[in-house]
């Protein structure tokens, strides 16, 4: 079991670990810091053997309709127009059949909508979770619940928890990266550290609504000095720091500062390199749908960045997309949204498989909740937290399966329900962490990601 580590212990340990690195000479670009178990971001052993080492979360903001994508409900078509019996909202109103066709896919024959024909090519790697449910059919609450396991109070994001539990595999890159997150629905809290040390918060790349090609990661670009001039300046800074260290004889804090400059300077080079898609060949760019004017360009870039970050050892990468809040214009908007992401996600899965990364990279797709089987008007669906779908792939989960089920019309999870808390427990388990034992003490209480809830959905683990 992970011992109870207090915030102070972590921080106390931090400079010591850094200091060792600083004076041991700088290690190779990707090697973990020696003795780094004591540093907040150094890699730490999981609590038990892990199936997955890293996560790519494709986060669909707005509540994507499960009924038109991954939860095939023949009865919904048969009973269209009848009064809806389930779902958080619009009970008693007319059921709306999906305007999209579902087909059995792959060897497993699981049904996936025509909207995801590229993703469907990986059907045998997908584990569809058809019985997701959460507490509140409102965007902000459920989005925060999905990210932090709590919607009333500020709690650390699941990425921050993972970084706290496992550290980072690459000391030259941030361990937790979020690409194009929404600025609303709780904003920075969804990728924040809350009461965990600040070292565990995400590095943000861009904003939802701004094409990622225009996104800048802060403070990586020394515009005011040439490369050489900056190195000379940094040497001066380090000489000043070394003077102070010599005067103080022993000083872990100053050692920490010295090392943070070397790490920062290397990150300044590494991160733009990792995010530079020009390093990829044209075939790869094409596969992801990257190209000026293409509908897939933006999300394709995000997915390729995610693959490059994962490959470089980043622990948790979240990729944001929206807005899936299809109260109206369902048919046209779903076509458009899926058209933006289907090819890139298909490419991501292909690419991860090709590079052998899929084995220990968990890919998750989904949003904060789903939609109602009853129509909202003739061409829309309302919020539904009582039953919806997400899917997992790679990272030690079984492929080609559907787990759990909603009722005949898809309104409510009735078989093997999986709550957001259960999803969290399962993710932590796949990463080698016990959700009841990954604890942090704050304000006199031990906190976990799942609080008193959460069940590991062992049935989906390979």
């Amino acid at each position: 079991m992970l011992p109870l580590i207090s915030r102070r212990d972590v921080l106390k340990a931090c400079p010591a670990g850094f200091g060792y690195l600083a004076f041991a000479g700088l290690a190779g670009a990707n090697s973990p810091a020696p003795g780094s178990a004591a540093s907040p971001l150094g890699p730490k052993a999981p609590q038990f053997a892990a199936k997955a080492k890293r996560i790519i979360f494709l986060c669909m903001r707005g509540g994507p309709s499960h009924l038109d994508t991954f939860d095939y409900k023949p009865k919904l078509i048969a009973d269209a127009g009848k009064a809806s019996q389930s779902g958080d909202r619009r009970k008693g109103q007319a059921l709306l059949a999906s305007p999209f066709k579902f087909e059995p896919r792959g060897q497993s024959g699981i049904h996936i909508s025509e909207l995801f024909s590229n993703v469907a090519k990986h059907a045998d790697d997908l584990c569809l979770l058809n019985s997701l449910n959460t507490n509140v059919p409102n965007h902000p609450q459920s989005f925060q619940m999905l990210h932090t396991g709590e919607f009333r109070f500020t709690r650390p994001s699941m990425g921050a928890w993972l970084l706290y539990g496992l550290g980072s595999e690459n000391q030259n890159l941030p361990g937790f990266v979020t690409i194009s997150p929404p600025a609303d629905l709780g904003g920075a809290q969804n990728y924040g550290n809350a009461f965990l040390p600040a070292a565990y918060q995400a590095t943000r790349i861009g904003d939802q609504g701004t094409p990622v090609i225009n996104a800048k990661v802060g403070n990586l670009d020394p515009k005011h000095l040439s490369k050489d001039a900056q190195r000379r300046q940094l040497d001066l800074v380090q000489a000043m720091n070394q003077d102070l260290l010599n005067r103080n004889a022993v000083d872990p804090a100053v050692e920490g500062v010295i090392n943070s400059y070397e790490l920062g300077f290397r990150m300044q080079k590494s991160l733009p390199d990792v995010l530079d898609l020009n390093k990829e060949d044209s075939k790869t760019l094409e596969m992801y749908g990257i190209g000026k004017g293409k509908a897939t360009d933006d999300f394709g870039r995000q997915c390729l960045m995610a693959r490059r970050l994962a490959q470089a050892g980043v622990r948790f990468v979240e990729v944001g997309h929206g807005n899936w809040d299809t109260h109206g214009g369902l048919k046209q908007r779903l076509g458009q949204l899926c058209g933006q992401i289907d090819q890139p996600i298909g490419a991501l899965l292909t690419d991860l498989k090709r590079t052998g990364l899929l084995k220990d990279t968990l890919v998750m797709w989904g949003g904060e909740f789903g939609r109602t089987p009853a129509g909202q008007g003739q061409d829309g669906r309302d919020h539904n937290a009582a039953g919806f779908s997400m899917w997992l792939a790679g990272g030690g989960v079984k492929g080609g399966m559907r787990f759990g089920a909603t009722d005949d019309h898809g309104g409510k999870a009735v078989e093997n329900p999986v709550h957001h808390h259960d999803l969290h427990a399962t993710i932590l388990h796949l990463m080698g962490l016990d959700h009841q034992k990954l604890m942090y003490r704050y304000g006199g209480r031990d906190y976990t990601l799942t609080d008193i809830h959460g069940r590991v959905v062992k049935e989906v683990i390979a």
Partner: protein
Amino acid sequence: MSCRLSLTWFLATVVSVSAADLDPKKVAFFENKIRPVLVTHCYECHSDKAAKLKGGLLLDSREGLLKGGDTGPSVIPGKPNESLLIKSLRQEKLKMPPKNPLPAHIVADFVQWVADGAIDPRTGGSSYKRLSAEEAKSFWSFVPPKQPAIPSLKDTTWARTDADRFIRAKLEEKGLKVMGDADRATLARRIYFDLIGLPPTPEQLDAFVSDKSAKAAEKLVDDLLASQQFGERWGRHWLDIARYGESNGNSDNLPFPEAWRYRNYVIASVNADKPYDQFIREQVAGDLLIPKDAKQKDEFLIATAFLALTSKPRAQNNPDYAMDLVADQVDVTTRAVLGLSVLCARCHDHKFDPIGTKEYYGLAGIFNSSTMLFGAGGKGAAKGGKGGGLLELSDGSETMGLREGKAGDIAVCIRGDSTKRGETVSRGFIAAATTKPTSPVNRSQSGRKELAEWLIQGNPFVARVAVNRIWLHLFGKAIVNSPDNFGFLGERPSHPELLDHLAVQFVKDGWSTKKMIRSLVLSRTYQMAHGHDEASYKTDPDNIYHWRAAQRRLDAEAQRDAILSIARKLDMKPVNASLAGGAKVNPKKNVTAAPEVFVRSVYLGVPRGRPLPESLAIFDAANPNIVVAQREETTVPSQALFLLNSPFVVEMSVATAQRLMAEAKDDSARLDLAYRLYYGRLPTDDEKSRGLKYIVDEVSALPARDKSPEGGKATAWASFAQAMIASAEFRYVR
């Protein structure tokens, strides 16, 4: 670790009933007929070993049996027909065990056992045991502070104050050698940053260093305590605790355009040295106090914004909304004033401290009897939540705050669920933490007025918690190293007698924060040097016993304000507005990130859920969603990158270079000035030659087109100034 060991020890020694006192026949009946059934049919869900405890009921100890679970006591000895356990076994009430009802003869055994007094020899057992009210009486933080004897010392010349004597006594006891006094320039820099969060100017530095009078330090401290900047720094310490933020944060992120009035109230209160007890009284019950004039009435109303500033969940689809708001009020009040975490008792009895759900709902009832006014920022208000609106001030402007609502007690929410209610609890305070009786709740009002008096006078925590925080901000390490947790799981004081001495002194001095700070800053302990001593370092590497002055990182605000002021870019004027939403806050629109404006950091906007200006956020500024009694101090690469590359630091470096060019006649003088500005000292000879060489090299490395003598110089000096900003010596105080 020692904490966990002592916990085990503690639990092992808590044994309430001795088996020897019980009727052996009845014990045998329990052992033969009752215990086996409990073990076989009940423990799976109702014991310490249960994978998931059901209904909060523990049947593996006598205590658990009598106390019962969420729905109340399970057994009333002697009264089988009234005992929930029997009703459940008879399948009348909760129907237990859920799947297979027990045969009639076993149920009859239970009836007989309860009728005979429910004799139960079991002791210990469950680890759900906590400090009882009785046991709490001897736990250190529940014992009221008493003036301890001032220790007599081997060395009678060192100590200047009584605080020094407590520190010195411990050092002598541990065999640690004290460090010598800090030099005057180092001391000046330390005092300026600690008291006003700004570095001394070269002129101020010279004035202090050349003032040879014995009263020089006293004079400096008095001057700084009297300055506006003092409140701007020490007010921020309280704003951390008050989880000060300027927007709703959680869901619909609407601004609190009037929150700044509370911020400025805190700054003004600190500057006025408002007695701490009155400061608390105003924030908890300002609207119920009798003001002497309209101005004071405004102040009292603004103070109650303390209880309205929380980030609010959306009311829609959330039956717990009202209770969520109340939970924040209970949490912030108890942690801010008492250093006790009471919030866990919202759902279950506190696991370690003697605080039960009943006490939580006693406090919650007080806040629930008040109305929270937070303006349009609580969009939830329009959707069925309570609140909305503002309080009107004498000049027609408005403030967030509290007013009395419908007075009444509330029922326990079982497991925190507002839709499942238990017994109604009388409004009141925390019994186990009460060491001096104060007035009970006035039943016709909310009870906040009486709560305020209890918070100030009725408990042993308030003064200790306050002085512990003052100590933390001056010495870098608190006496109780868990400043927001004085409970069983908190740390124990490193100097318990010193803490009590300070607490008693604080109250005696009329709860004056300034007097306390003055006395501590003038102590010998505070004025020591930060040096190295091999032997002391080996014995006490964390400097728990204060054998030297601590080296402390400048906090985010002090670092930012110092960078700005040295660059001559800091606008020192207080701000009477909110800067959270840009130039003008629109109360109907979600907040955006707070802009970087060159005012003192305390006045920058604090929109929740949006990034604070990087100059603060990256350096561990307080998260406005949570109560922060002690900030983190992380050292991470993003800080290095900010200092090397951010437009903010680059702009300030360029501005500083202009100042150096303008105010000093040559490079040697510029170098002296730069060291005095950033480090508060002159460069050594080595530093001087290294610095001058750097300037020459940088000028010659510049491309030819930039080589006008002026332009080249300024660029090189900007690069040098930035290096000084980035260096550890600037970023730390010692």
